[in-house]
């Protein structure tokens, strides 16, 4: 028995897989890397995601257009946004968040102007509980280190401010059904069919 055991052991330790290329697999981290801040702070300065190409600064066009505060459906310009706008659209329109006189700024309900980088404050006017949870890292997502540097995402990294509801996702493939799992390896299978 002992001899047999040693034979089996010897066989198992001398069998080795074939050689292959040397690649370094990348650890999956598809999230955008953004500015870093630690927990417990009130001001969170995170780089905002890029605005649509060629649209900023808004004043390039708007400085030459007369400001029109009347609520209306936009047709000539920004009709793409009008088309998708779904953010309490019955009660709100562009100038509830964008400033009438300085289009390069956002505008709080108080009238205070706000940089695009601080858009989370604007969101927090209505979504106060979400803002509170986001500040402590419960709403939204943090990456990096659980005991150190963290990367935040702003509201607008995940939610389109004009249509904030999440799109449905295509799920990854389901696990193989138990009865279809082959416990023989491909190599062994090949061997058997030879």
């Amino acid at each position, binding site marked *: 028995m002992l001899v047999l055991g040693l034979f089996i052991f010897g066989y198992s330790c001398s069998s080795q897989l074939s050689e292959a290329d040397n690649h370094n697999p990348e*650890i*999956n981290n598809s999230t955008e890397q953004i500015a870093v801040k630690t927990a417990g702070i009130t001001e969170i300065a995170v780089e905002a995601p890029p605005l649509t190409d060629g649209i900023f600064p808004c004043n390039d066009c708007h400085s030459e257009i007369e400001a029109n505060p009347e609520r209306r459906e936009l047709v000539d310009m920004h009709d793409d946004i009008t088309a998708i706008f779904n953010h309490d659209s019955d009660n709100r329109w562009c100038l509830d968040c964008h400033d009438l006189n300085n289009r390069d700024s956002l505008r709080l309900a108080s009238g205070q102007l706000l940089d695009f980088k601080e858009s989370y404050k604007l969101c927090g006017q209505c979504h106060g509980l979400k803002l509170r949870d986001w500040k402590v890292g419960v709403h939204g997502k943090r990456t990096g280190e659980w005991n150190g540097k963290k990367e935040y995402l702003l509201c607008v990294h995940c939610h389109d401010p004009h249509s904030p509801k999440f799109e*449905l996702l295509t799920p990854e493939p389901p696990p193989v059904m138990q009865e279809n799992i082959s416990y023989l390896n491909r190599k062994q299978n090949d061997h058997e069919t030879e």
Partner: protein
Amino acid sequence: MKQNKTRRSFLKNISLASMAALTATGCNMKELDEFFQRNFRTLSDKEKEDIIKNLEQKYKQKYNKEFQVSAQPAMEQVEFAYALDLSRCVGCRKCVYACVDENNQSRAPQIHWIQVLQMEKEKGIDFAHSDVHYNPEKVPEKGHFYLPVACQQCRTPQCTTVCPVKATWQEPDGIVVIDYNWCIGCRYCMAACPYGARHFNWGEPEVPEEELNTDVHYLGNRPRIKGVVEKCTFCIQRVRKGKYPSCVEICPVGARKFGNLLDPESEIRYILENKRVLVLKEELNTQPRFYYFFGV
């Protein structure tokens, strides 16, 4: 007298035969060392170092890759815990595959440490009627919610108490780990685990060589062999270096939260103190360190 002689000759023959067997199979001393290696917890630091050096060489030979095998112990004043927001999870299964990639899980036969269960909102958390094989065009599906389950890292784990050889135990930071070299593959732990979180290598695990993660921990994601049990370790190779587990980093809806229970400033403590929290199968007194909560 005669009996004695028989025994002596038997011993003589057996030792000769084993010598012959060893030479014939080409086993070297390192492989013998590995065969007679003791339980990981009884090893001195020096022994661990040697074993790791041997392992790295072995992997280099076997996979033609430079592995960094770590045996980093638990940090002081750290107890890990995890929280998953049931109101956010959409069942996209991105975590399942991020985990497979990070932890070198076998692709064939397939092993998934995370199972995402689809449940009916009308029935609530009902394991008997949950579906792990759901496959619609888009998720989340109407009328359903999703509950991913992996190792719950219990404070009173049943899996470790039933192990007849003590090949699995709870680390000081709360992670339940397995010494794959010591595991005899009896699967008692799988029978004992009420969460189905442990998985057995029925076949030789297969990972495409270009997809191997070479940053591994001895008690975590190092390549496994046929006949051993494996399970989630909160990405021990990442979290002991301060990084978030891989599933936390991939989750597209930010449903997964992780941190140090002993740090009052951590998001995990905030969740436990401010949100509605539950654990699975509370009545079994396993006292999981994996919490589910409702963020809204």
